[in-house]
């Protein structure tokens, strides 16, 4: 049995992630759980997250999810989504500066007010369907055309450097990291569970991924 644990630490809409995986992978068993033991037993793990990073990090630390992530992100396919991706970075400018989990050295920055593109003011949050450029080939991009549109909603972004870990970028006033990855870890700023066909394909790829690049 292929078990996918979605870590439930009280932040966000976990229903959508689990329904989307059930939709694409009939052989997968999805559990939404806050029980560390069930997460440890799972074949693959998803760290979701929405809202303010300060609140997410506070819950992550309070519930011991930081130690759990450090443990299960070393040896099995691991996927971070949205603030769940930002939480894996070094730190975030949001809420006056928040230390994150530091699995990646990238920094999380505010889009800036005003955010300009060709002199036109862009809205923040970055909300809607934007194109994702594949910066590197990766098993999770299988069956997904380069520059496909995924659904984003966020006000803070991950700086796309160092380049070695950047798997995909999007353009919104500036280049932002849309996907980062290293070894068995992959994380996306967009919401695959809300990105229709291409998003479902990415989740399908994750469920069959062996964790190797």
């Amino acid at each position, binding site marked *: 049995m292929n078990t996918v644990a979605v870590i439930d630490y009280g932040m966000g*809409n976990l*229903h*959508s992630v689990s*329904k*989307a995986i059930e*939709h694409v992978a009939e052989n997968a068993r999805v559990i939404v759980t806050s029980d560390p033991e069930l997460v440890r037993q799972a074949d693959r793990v998803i760290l979701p997250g*929405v*809202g*303010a990073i300060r609140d997410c990090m506070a819950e992550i630390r309070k519930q011991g999810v930081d130690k759990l992530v450090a443990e299960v992100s070393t040896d099995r396919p691991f996927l971070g989504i949205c603030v769940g991706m930002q939480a894996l970075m070094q730190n975030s400018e949001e809420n006056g500066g928040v230390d994150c989990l530091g699995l990646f050295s990238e920094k999380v920055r505010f889009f800036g*007010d*005003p955010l300009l*593109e060709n002199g036109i*003011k*862009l*809205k*923040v*949050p*970055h*909300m*809607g*369907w*934007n*194109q994702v450029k594949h910066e590197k080939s990766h098993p999770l991009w299988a069956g997904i055309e380069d520059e496909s*549109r995924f*659904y*984003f*909603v*966020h*006000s803070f972004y991950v700086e796309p450097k160092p380049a070695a870990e950047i798997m995909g970028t999007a*353009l*919104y006033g500036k280049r932002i990291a849309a996907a980062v990855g290293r070894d068995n870890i992959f994380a996306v700023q967009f*919401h695959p*569970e*809300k*990105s*229709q066909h291409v*998003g*479902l394909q990415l989740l399908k790829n994750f469920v069959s991924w062996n964790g190797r690049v």
Partner: protein
Amino acid sequence: MGLAKRIIPCLDVDKGRVVKGVQFVDIRDAGDPVEVAKRYDEQGADEITFLDITASHEDRETTVHTVEKMASEVFIPLTVGGGIRKVEDIRTMLNAGADKVSINTAAVFNPDFVRQAADRFGSQCIVVAIDAKRVSLEGEVPRWEIFTHGGRKPTGLDAVEWAVKMMKYGAGEILLTSMDRDGMKNGFDLGVTRAISDAVSIPVIASGGVGNLQHLVDGIKEGRADAVLAASIFHFGQHTIPEVKLFMEKQGIEVR
């Protein structure tokens, strides 16, 4: 290249059925909400807005089940509005699978509710719906006010100032409906759309009055909306989502 403008079909749902907009005299049945949402999803809609117009409390249970079912079968963002008055209502809808909730009248009576909601659940899922009506006369400096109760009750609140206030209180998006135009099929009120879109730094969805494809283009180009919402032009087969997107693309608007 870049972010696409969004096309959002709106489902007005009463007692578990999609109905045509409430302003219409004959409320025609437009089908099962889950089936309708699936059809729009397949056609390439960018989001779905589900507006619960059910009056009675017991029928709201039906709404929660409908949202649950829809969220299990449609994998694009889903906004649920109508009757969102308490933090608990938001939690119920998010747990049922909604991605965003739309707060309307409750924000007018208690602006702090928007602040609490954004603090608790994040701005990304808080849409503030604004029902605006033009109150200035021809020749005067244009001015729009917020109305409640389906456009019947004035509040004295200036629509543009209100939108800015709601943004400061944590709204992540504004759903702007022009009550003068709703159901009239003569196009968005571009004046108020432009005024609010320029005044706030968050996305604005234009709604109310779409009768043809050019109206949608005008909402984006003239009104500077980030997304356009329509109901009846889609429900009864007047236009499909691909037709809308092709029409927009030909006029240089970026679509998915």
